[in-house]
């Protein structure tokens, strides 16, 4: 088994046993929809408002997962064990980013149906394939940047404060792209095609920050 696969399996096993991140993130997103219902005082929403509410919720839920991503490594000495092993350090990045990506997909599996049920006016049926493409592009971006930010903040004193401060501005292009790309899918008058340029922006973002995380991650593990 490759080191990255072993690390990912370890993370998933720990998550399955302790259930720390995914249930909290899913619960948070459903709570956020209830909060948006009362905050906006609207029974149903559609169009740009709906896509904004959906992606802001996903982004904030992702912060919870990013915050916890390396905590076990830091507290239980996982970093030391990993650094002692004769394996490529990129394995840790790949495993953690894959774990975060999986968490996000699982959360969205709960959050998007809950959103359609609780808040969304127009039906989601015909827009589903395009929405899936946007979701994947967004999640890859969040996973790359989230892993980098989590690793940056894990040794800092005010870790829980720094993660949102660092991640939210860095993820703003993702939010812009996701919200703009999803708006035509959620129109009250029926879904319209996604403008290709926003998928392009999201893809470019994923590529740039994926490469950046790959190039910089080694420096965060040296000790």
């Amino acid at each position, binding site marked *: 088994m490759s080191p990255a696969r072993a690390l990912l399996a370890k993370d998933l096993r720990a998550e399955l046993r302790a259930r720390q991140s995914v249930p909290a993130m899913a619960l948070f997103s459903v709570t956020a929809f209830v909060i948006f219902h009362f905050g906006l005082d609207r029974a149903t929403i559609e169009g740009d408002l709906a896509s904004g509410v959906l992606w802001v919720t996903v982004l904030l839920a992702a912060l919870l997962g990013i915050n916890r991503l390396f905590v076990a490594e830091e507290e239980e000495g996982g970093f030391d064990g990993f650094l002692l092993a004769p394996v490529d350090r990129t394995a840790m990045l790949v495993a953690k980013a894959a774990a975060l990506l999986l968490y996000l997909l699982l959360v969205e599996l709960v959050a998007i149906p809950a959103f359609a049920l609780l808040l969304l006016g127009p039906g989601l049926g015909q827009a589903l394939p395009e929405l899936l493409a946007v979701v994947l592009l967004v999640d890859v971006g969040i996973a790359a940047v989230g892993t980098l930010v989590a690793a*940056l903040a894990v040794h*800092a004193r005010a870790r829980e404060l720094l993660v949102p*401060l*660092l991640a939210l501005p860095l993820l*703003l292009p993702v939010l812009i792209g996701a919200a703009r790309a999803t708006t035509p899918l959620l129109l009250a008058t029926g879904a319209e095609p996604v403008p290709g340029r*926003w998928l392009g*922006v999201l893809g470019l973002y994923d590529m740039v*920050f994926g490469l950046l995380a790959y190039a*910089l991650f080694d420096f965060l593990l040296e000790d």
Partner: protein
Amino acid sequence: MYGRGLRPLSIATVLALIGAFSLVFFYAPNDADQGFVQKIFYVHVPMAIVALGGFVFGAIMAIQHLRTGDRRYDMRSYVAIHLSIILGLGVLVTGSIWARASWGHWWVWDEPTLVSFLIVFLLFSCYQPLRFSIEDPERQARYASVFAITAGAFVPLNFLAVRLAQAYTHPRVLGTTGGDMPGSMRVTFLLSLVAMALLFTTLGKYEMASKHAGQQLRALRARLAAQATAR
């Protein structure tokens, strides 16, 4: 070592600033439709260009630091980002005043350059909190460099995303500098830019010199204390 050439540089900076401001007030013509308030342009735009340049310079120095492991590059990166944050605050304040005077609102969301600048400013404002909440000095330098590079790469992507988001509803006809300026305005603008860049360099050199002197002082004190206990 860092103090060398500071005096002529300071004098050149003061002269350039005086020259730039005299040109702004006595030479450059008032703008045809914005009038006197347009002169804030000669402070706002050079400050924005220098601040963005400083952020990029900080990122380049951070790359150098990670490549060579030389702490001096980290210090340069820190000083550049630190000064750029201060200039950035000036950019936002002057931009806001200009927006109020010419568009009637303190903040306008459909001005992509201003909005992108705010986001970049917010991101770089995390540089110091991140840096100073890591205790080990060697790790502090390394992590700060990683952040500086990430944030530096974020700048162009962010500008692209914000500009596209605006272009969706507001097609832009003119660039931010106003396309073609009359010659007298261009000269004034260029001198203001040079003066601002000189100011940035001088302040940066002063901060580097002061940091270096502080480090030397601490090393000497430690040596003195070691000698005192040995005696």
